[in-house]
């Protein structure tokens, strides 16, 4: 099968490309970033997904399936550009898929779609609306991209759409928001709060994507592996030091003392849990994780030992 992967040049993209090649697929990558250490056999096109060059790739390659990973999630880059990539890029992927006869499109979204709030339930179901936008408007483009992808279910009946809301990734490549948050020796947390964190090993993330490609489940699905664990435990088991900081001090420290300048709403994500029910995905595809939460934390710790001072 010819599989086109927009946004392939990330660490997760490389893992996915390797696995797809092993399974005998033709892998075609699109990314505006250069794909360093690309696995041999990937046909790489260094173009922006929103530009004409990307459409040419669809036209020439005629992929059977598309796995759309070209969304910008980190909040440091807070610009028009991010909005354009996440919304314009997603739209382009679906339009070209419709025009050039793609059979199956997978949108790789995030479980943070549901937002973190004091009164939000544990283990969100797919039918729940996104609630975090009032306190965290910076996530709006990702939420809109997710909803747009969902609208493809009725907008483009000619192909199957799978919208995945995946929990955090944790593993030896250090890909993802949670892995980045845990990178340093000390991890700042909010004093008096210890939310559950839901994550899975990157190996299982790739498994889930490959399973989606094979099974072509139609609809919107949460993707989760093992149970969530408290943030304090994630910090301890990855060998870091938990530094609890009172809330009002924390908000004033953002952007100073080497802390990233995060929007205030981001704090809700280390205050309240975002956990999802992955039951529907497991039922639709037969997916089962292979590495539990302890395994994922150990793997990260081995690849990223506690930095020495």
């Amino acid at each position, binding site marked *: 099968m010819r599989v086109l992967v927009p946004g392939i040049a990330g660490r997760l993209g490389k893992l996915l490309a390797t696995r797809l090649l092993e399974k005998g697929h033709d892998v075609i990558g699109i990314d505006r970033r250069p794909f360093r250490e690309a696995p041999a056999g990937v046909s790489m096109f260094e173009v922006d997904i929103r530009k004409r060059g990307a459409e040419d790739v669809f036209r020439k390659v005629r992929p059977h399936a598309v796995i759309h990973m070209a969304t910008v999630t980190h909040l440091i880059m807070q610009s028009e550009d991010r909005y354009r990539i996440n919304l314009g890029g997603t739209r382009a992927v679906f339009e070209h898929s419709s025009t050039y006869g793609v059979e199956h499109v997978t949108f790789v979204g995030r479980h943070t779609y549901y937002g973190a709030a004091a009164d939000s339930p544990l283990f969100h179901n797919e039918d729940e609306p996104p609630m975090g936008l009032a306190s965290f408007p910076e996530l709006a483009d990702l939420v809109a991209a997710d909803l747009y992808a969902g609208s493809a279910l009725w907008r483009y009946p000619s192909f199957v759409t799978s919208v995945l809301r995946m929990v955090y990734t944790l593993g030896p490549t250090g890909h993802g928001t949670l892995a980045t948050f845990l990178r340093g020796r000390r991890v700042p947390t909010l004093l*008096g709060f210890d939310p559950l964190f839901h994550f899975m090993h990157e190996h299982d993330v790739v498994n889930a994507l490959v399973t989606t490609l094979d099974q072509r489940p139609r609809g919107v699905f949460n993707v989760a592996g093992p149970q*969530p664990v408290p943030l304090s435990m994630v910090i301890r088991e990855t060998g870091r030091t938990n530094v609890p900081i009172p809330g009002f001090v924390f908000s004033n420290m953002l952007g100073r003392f080497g802390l990233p300048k995060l929007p205030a709403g981001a704090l809700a994500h280390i205050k309240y849990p975002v956990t999802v029910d992955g039951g529907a995905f497991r039922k639709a595809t037969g997916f089962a994780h292979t590495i539990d939460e302890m395994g994922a934390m150990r793997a990260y710790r081995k690849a990223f030992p506690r930095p020495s001072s």
Partner: protein
Amino acid sequence: MRFSLPVDTEVRERLERLEIPFNTYGVDPYGVSKAYLGPVLTALKFFFKHYFSVDSYGIEHVSPRGRVMLVGNHSGGVAVDGAMVHASQFFEMNPPRLAQGMAEKFLNKIPFASPVANRCGHLTGLPEHAERLLADERMIIVFPEGARGTAKLYRDRYSLVHFGSGFARLAMKMKTPIVPFAFLGGGEAIPTISNAVSVGKMFGVPYVPVTPWLVALPLPVKLEIHYSEPMFFEGTGAEDDDVVSANVEKVKQRIAALIDLGRKRRTGEHVVASVVP
């Protein structure tokens, strides 16, 4: 945050017998943690067995396994009632059961209270949580009077205020037996003479109960829990309000009868053993 507080031997032994799917670190999917339950239940044991020397009646009505909803009256201005029912299920059931309270929403916003409550199994009182826990064959504690119930003043301590109907609807939908219980003595332990709403606002809680000695520190009075026979309501949970309300009324009447029975027993009157008509 890690507890290094002492854990009682009996608590440790009973924790091992809890039928909860803990992972190798002693944390279940909801975040319920042995590391928190140990010290908290050690403290509760002192209150349950000595300070309040709680007497419980009819615990044989509680099934040792499977989904169940404990439904009772609020008694006392702070969550002494819920804590003692939690302790009763842990110390008096064999195997011990984890009774998970459905907490008021404000609790999750309060530093320390939020993780401690959550790690002990008391999640925010959302229908989604209750339904999910029941589907997982857990035990939940419901006080249908809500915050109105904890706000009862001393003179109203044996009365029942309005019951919400959500619990009955959910019990019907989830085919869950309701075990009604009456909690007695909380009003004497914490005799609320007034509720300071504006002081509460300052701390992010609905109100702060005021006692004759100002703060809501409970007196060491005897508390009682009276469990009754399980009640089961047929249905789907999608019935009209009057159908559900009739079931709510049955539960409320059962609890009122249990309270009467308990009061009579407290004053030494001869009582019949059951309140089931």
